[in-house]
């Protein structure tokens, strides 16, 4: 038996596996839903961030499940959901809308990071299906875009960069979307820790176990790397004004601690959030970008006090 296959599922204090899982058909693609709590209770839908997965809510969801039916989505190309050969933003938003349409009544939606952006756009798309929206540090990239500190921005023209996209499309296959094989779960932990140094190794071991799949020679991420390879016009200055159409109340949450990603400088965040008609803001102490993973109890208490009971 390989080392990978002999690794048993890690446990983590407070983490509870979903009580139910199912696949929802969204335009022919299976979308994995993980559920906790009384199926007859009011629904709360959870949307994870880029290259994360629904099991990242294993510590938050059971706390919310005291009062709600909690439904965590694996976004397309992530977790146990299906892969497709292209991932434009609008279909990810429509997946969330399809989940909302599948429920028996309007829901509260909670999204983290990219999932906060998706949740917000889903609420704009389907206002009648969203009662309340909590956005956990999902307020878009900084004004200079998705740049990586220390890496020079791509100064080439749009057509030159689009040629790269076309070259990439010519190579696009399922194996093209697969990541390399990691020898051990610890290697995955260290890879993720390099990106998110605030997350503890103990939590990451639990998190990456569900983010990766054991193969004969080691582990590969479940996420389709093609999910980050889109092309189209997009401008950071579109982010805030787009929220003027939001009709649901938004609870905008950030962590108190600086992190490798977010929170945005207050001058930028405040300007963007000024477009939200019904806004409340909150800061979770002792958390960076991964608010609910770092402080699940405090995040749950905040959400349970804000989300209404009906």
């Amino acid at each position: 038996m390989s080392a990978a296959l002999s690794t048993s599922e890690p446990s983590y204090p407070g983490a509870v596996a979903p009580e139910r899982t199912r696949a929802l058909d969204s335009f022919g693609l299976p979308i994995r839903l993980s559920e906790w709590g009384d199926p007859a209770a009011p629904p709360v839908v959870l949307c994870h961030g880029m290259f994360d997965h629904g099991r990242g809510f294993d510590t938050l969801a059971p706390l919310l499940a005291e009062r709600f039916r909690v439904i965590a989505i694996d976004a397309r190309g992530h977790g146990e959901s299906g892969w497709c050969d292209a991932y434009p933003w609008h279909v990810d938003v429509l997946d969330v809308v399809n989940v909302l349409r599948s429920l028996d009544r309007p829901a509260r939606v909670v999204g983290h990071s990219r999932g906060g952006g998706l949740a917000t756009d889903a609420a704009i798309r389907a206002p009648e299906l969203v009662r309340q929206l909590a956005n956990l540090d999902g307020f878009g990239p900084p004004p200079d875009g998705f740049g990586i500190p220390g890496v020079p921005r791509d100064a080439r023209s749009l057509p030159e960069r689009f040629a790269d996209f076309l070259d990439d499309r010519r190579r696009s296959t399922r194996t093209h979307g697969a990541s390399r094989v990691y020898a051990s779960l610890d290697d995955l932990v260290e890879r993720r820790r390099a990106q998110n140094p605030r997350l503890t190794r103990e939590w990451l071991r639990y998190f990456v176990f569900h983010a990766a799949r054991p193969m004969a020679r080691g582990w590969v991420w479940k996420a389709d790397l093609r999910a980050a390879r889109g092309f189209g016009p997009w401008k950071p200055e579109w982010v805030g004004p787009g929220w003027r159409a939001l009709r649901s109340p938004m609870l905008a949450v950030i962590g108190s601690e600086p992190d490798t990603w977010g929170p945005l400088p207050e001058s930028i965040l405040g300007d963007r959030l000024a477009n939200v008609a019904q806004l409340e803001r909150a800061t979770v102490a002792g958390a960076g970008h991964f608010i609910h993973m770092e402080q699940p109890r405090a995040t749950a208490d905040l959400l349970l006090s804000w989300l209404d009971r009906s």
Partner: protein
Amino acid sequence: MSPRARKIAHGELELALHELRSTSRSGAPADATPLVLVHALEGSARDWLPHGEAILAAWRGPVFAIDLAGHGESDWRVGGAYTPELFAADVDAVLAAIGRAALAGAGVGAYASLLVAAARRDLVPGAVLLPGRGLAGGGALPVASGRAPDFAPEVARDTRGGSSAQLASRAACDPLVRACLEDVRPVDYAESFAGAARALLLAADGDDLPPWWRAVRGAPPAKAAPREAAAAVAALAEAIA
């Protein structure tokens, strides 16, 4: 469609490429530039048939017509992801299969042809853009109207109601392609592509055309062409001769 069709690959998809004429016209050089026709949104290669004879008379080289993904005899994309940039990649898949070619596109196919003509200037000697469905997209700026998407079938409402594949059998094209009635087409984005194309002909004029079209019309390589498809193709033949 009566012309011969072959399948070409774009990633995991198979696209239908129809051959209106697989070789050069008699009397023309055997290596005359091929032409690829790119239909409008919710159309198919069949849309060119009424103009087929006239287009064949206007062009010396081989003439092909693609069915874009989600249209005609081409595969639908699992999960319903369609953007003009992905349609452009469908057109680029044709270039990967047949090599250098000029493009004639209508509607969203015109916009996709613009993107390909700029990014693949070594493979595309010129393109003619024709009006048609999907020409405007959602406009030059994001629309923050909050309206529900009218192109997204509610496949998730009733799990007994049928899968997307079953919906597929009821429609001529994937309803999700209608996302291309909403995508943002900024003027500066279109202009930067227009500036990189080798020859660009625009077969329509007027204030009712979308902002990206009017911007491209003012860009250096762009010239006017007749509105009728075969006449526009004849103008393209002349422009790249």
